[in-house]
């Protein structure tokens, strides 16, 4: 099948590569750009392991074709830490609050939380639960993921989050 | 799943019955039919392309006619495999009832699917099969006698004693 050149900005850098019209964005990111932090967990857009940030919204990259992302600005888990290499507060908070176990859903979960906290910097527990309901986790039961996001939100707002991981 | 339907065709039973046995007419009526090849009076090979929800597949299969009872009716059954998409089986029991110069065509359709079609498209099957059956008989009616009216009878309604379906009407 004929390939098309696709160009996009990923984690602040302009990248381009060849993709068949049917190539999924997640495959382009993983196979062509070699950014393997974005995962694949299903093929029906249910699990959210492939969540990335695309032009300011959370997107499941298994449900987009690479060619549809032409000219877009994308952020993946590899582009979440600060430029100096220090971790983003969410990455730190997920570790502090034991918000991950096998780590497979984690990149998508953090990307979703990253956008959620920009949409709503002080979400309630309920808002967090609804906000991440497009991302499945099989290990944690979500309770510590919710706590991790609360912990990060508090830290980003300069507040303290009282509840430590029990 | 089963469903029933009924239509009035402005043509005598003999003509309707003959049309039901004519591969050329069947080819025009079977939705998505690419080809029909007659093997015998009761067997045909067919190629059909169907789209069920997200899955589009070409089916290669066989159509058989049985319970031949001219001019009162017959059973038409089809079975085909669509490769990775799965397989489909379906059939209709067709009964022709004379109504003066016209014919009332009653049908009971059942359909079964297997494989990926069933796994992904199960919630679409009933509506798809219903549409396919409707399309078949509507085309058939239009070819045999333009102006035929199709009345679909939902299976549940047919069973309900208060609203007798065509079977109920026949048996009284």
């Amino acid at each position, binding site marked *: 099948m004929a390939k098309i050149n696709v160009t996009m900005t990923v984690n602040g850098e302009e990248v381009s590569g060849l993709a068949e019209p049917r190539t999924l964005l997640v495959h382009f990111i993983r196979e062509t750009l070699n950014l393997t932090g974005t*995962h694949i967990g299903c093929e029906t857009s249910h699990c959210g392991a492939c969540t990335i940030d695309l032009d300011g919204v959370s997107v499941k990259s298994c449900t987009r074709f690479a060619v549809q992302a032409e000219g877009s600005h994308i952020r993946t888990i590899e582009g979440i830490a600060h430029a100096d290499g220090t971790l983003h507060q969410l990455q730190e908070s997920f570790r502090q609050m034991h918000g991950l176990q096998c780590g497979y859903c984690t990149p998508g979960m953090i990307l979703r939380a990253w956008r959620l906290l920009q949409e709503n910097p002080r979400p309630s527990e309920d808002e967090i639960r609804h906000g991440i309901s497009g991302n*499945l986790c099989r290990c944690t039961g979500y309770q510590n993921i919710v706590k991790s996001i609360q912990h990060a939100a508090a830290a980003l707002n300069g507040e303290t989050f009282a509840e430590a991981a029990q | 799943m089963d469903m029933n339907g009924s239509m009035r065709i402005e043509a005598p039973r003999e003509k309707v019955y003959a049309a039901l046995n004519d591969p050329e007419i069947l080819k025009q009526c079977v939705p998505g039919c690419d080809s029909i090849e007659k093997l015998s009076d009761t067997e045909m090979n067919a190629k059909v392309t169907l789209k069920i929800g997200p899955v589009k597949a070409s089916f290669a299969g066989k159509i058989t006619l049985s319970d031949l009872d001219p001019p009162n009716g017959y059973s038409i059954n089809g079975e085909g495999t669509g490769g*990775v998409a799965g397989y489909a089986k379906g059939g209709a029991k067709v009964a022709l009832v004379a109504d003066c110069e016209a014919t009332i065509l009653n049908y009971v359709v059942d359909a079964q699917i297997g494989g990926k079609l069933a796994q992904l498209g199960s919630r679409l099957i009933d509506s798809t099969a219903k549409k396919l059956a409707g399309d078949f008989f509507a085309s058939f009616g239009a070819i045999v006698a333009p102006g035929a009216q199709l009345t679909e009878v939902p299976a549940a309604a047919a069973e309900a004693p208060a609203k007798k379906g065509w079977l109920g009407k026949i048996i009284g």
Partner: protein
Amino acid sequence: MNDMTPTREAREAKLEGMGCKRKRVEDVRFTQGRGNYVDDIKLPAMLYGDMVRSSYAHARVKRIDTSKAEKVPGVVAVITAETLKTVNLAWMPTLAGDVQMVLADGKVLFQNQEVAFVVATSLQAAADGVELVEVDYEELPVIVDPFKSMAADAPVLREDLAGKTEGAHGKRDHHNHIFKWQVGDKPLTDEAFNRADVKIDELISYHRTHPSPLETCQCVASFDKIKGELTLWGTFQAPHVIRTVVSLISKLPEHKIHVIAPDVGGGFGNKVGAYSGYVCAVVASIVTGRPVKWVEDRMENLSTTSFARDYHMRTEIAATKDGKVTGLRVHILADHGAFDACADPSKWPAGFSNIITGSYDFPVAHLCVDGVYTNKAPGGVAYRCSFRVTEAAYAIERGMDILAQKLGMDPAELRLKNFIKREQFPYQSALGWEYDSGDYHTALNKALVAVDYAGLRAEQKAKREAFKRGETREIMGLGICFFTEIVGAGPSKNCDILGLAMFDSCEIRIHPTGSAIARVGTKSTGQGHETTWAQIIASEIGIAASEIMVEEGNTDTAPYGLGTYGSRSTPVAGAAIAMASRKIKAKAQMIAAWLLEVHEDDLVFDIDRFQVKGVPERYKTMTDIAWVAYHSPPPGMEPGLEAVSYYDPPNMTYPFGAYICVMDIDVDTGVAKTRRFYALDDCGTRINPMIIEGQVHGGLTEAFAISMGQEIRYDEMGNVMGASFMDFFLPTAVETPHWETDHTVTPSPHHPIGAKGVGESPNVGGVPAFSNAVNDAFSFLGSTHIQMPHDAWRLWKVAEKLGVTG
């Protein structure tokens, strides 16, 4: 120098040893997307494999035409059973003593069964090839209901077994029969039933479900023709077992097989078995001389690799009229699907289902299990539970509630009355186990107080009255579960897999500068072994956990181990880690004695050092000792400081817990809301309370999913109806209840550190707690037992049947 020494508390804290909520080492890479999962592996010239699968649940395969597929640009090879026969691999042995087709050989026996394997230069080309493989099938009659498997006129599923009246586990009574397994004293049990005042008799089914880790099963096989060596990366919970199996079936010498399980995205039992995809990838790599990657998609995962449960348990309990249990009689019909690929220890065709007497002092019991074939996917793995333990716990915990209902007794009171008492441990159960330790009364009483059980029952009574008066449309249920697990398989006297004793192992090397590497025979799939194993070593030998690297999953470097499943890592490998640490400590003590010029017996170990008894300022730290071990060991002593331990546990461990679920159900919609869920776990010594809590949260969420909706259902044609996340219920953060956790600590007396294992307890205990809550809610309306799963539609049907819908 001694004045500068940190306080004992500071030294202790620096170790981050057992009991500490140490943050996880793994998280640093996982939170940055730097995990290394199988699908992240990319090798030069790597090919991609994709499977052609059967649409039919039972059919004869008349013809496979691969010619069109082979012409697809990018397709390199198409492998069928005929190809595999040339290397004698068309069939492979299962862990349960059966054989299984790798690719369809003559017929297919379940939907989505593997028929051909297409290998191509890209994922897309492989998928194109799969589309063009033509297979002619002749449909055969299908059995999906295990109760119809052994009918006289049932179609023969396994033609390869024709005439074989003996299976791996004794006599086969019918062509679709796999085994009959019995334990306990039948005459004595029957007598107890004859004498009983009260009896219950209920068919309690545990439906078919699937472990469904977020990462599916996958592998990369790379065969080096020049060296004759195979490297196999895969999502393996038991990499060493995979290496031995590959060696046995491929005839490649075991030392030329390198099996590596990198980061694994969840297992839950799904990644214990050996699957067709692995074998095909290996063969394809040998055939093509190139690395071959095989990655299952979600539909393939849910419909082919290892389902769980499908146990149908006729449960009878005999009791006196005042509620003392006198006998238990259970018959289980076990649906194993098309091949017996159950992942149980070899001698246990029904796993440890004889833990079915639970936490109660049954004087007599009898259990009989019949395994049968059906046209469904093979498997029967322990989905987040020890072998068949969740099934057993479900039957007994439902059974006790049904008995309480029949006696008109409170279910908590009935349990307290029949518990094995603390002083009875070690306790010999009527079905042959020796329970190591327990304090059930303390645990349940603590739980009852924590939730204000009496208050909840009073509220329920009032709500029921209000319901009857028509003032509310909600009914309230209280579900109690008191489970006893059996984990840590297991003692070599009764546990093996393919003849391999189920020990586990640890090798520790202390480096000259006092840091260390530990290699363990288990494989974390999210449990955080890199974190917790280091904590055990830290406490045992006094090197800070942060100075210890833990490595698992590489069979070239890790000592042989049986892997991670059945909550066996802590009971078995955890013990091996402690024992290896103690060997190092013993040598360190000799070195310290020599350095301090005292007798070994005059030394005492204190946190991170050996010190002279009564003279704490005379000491040598482990760092001092490590340097000496490599620099100037005592005369006559071998240099170095390392140890290996292979631990064969003397017994299983028996974690237990008390779970209480409070639920409100709307009878008009069937929607059930979990108001409160309290889980008290006793897993003995607690290594990392943060990780234990995380394990409990996760296990409870899986229990919630299973009991409230998750199911792999088949229609009568054998179509699998739960094979995507559209249909297979995985709860999101919105549906998932809030979990309250608590604990008691009753150490295992035979385990070196007293730990029992916890990963699976919440699933084992959670399912009955949810189901008991649902059943308790409906019980006052005349209902006795409602089969799982309890999704809203089914609960609404129950309410409708009971005549209480609006």
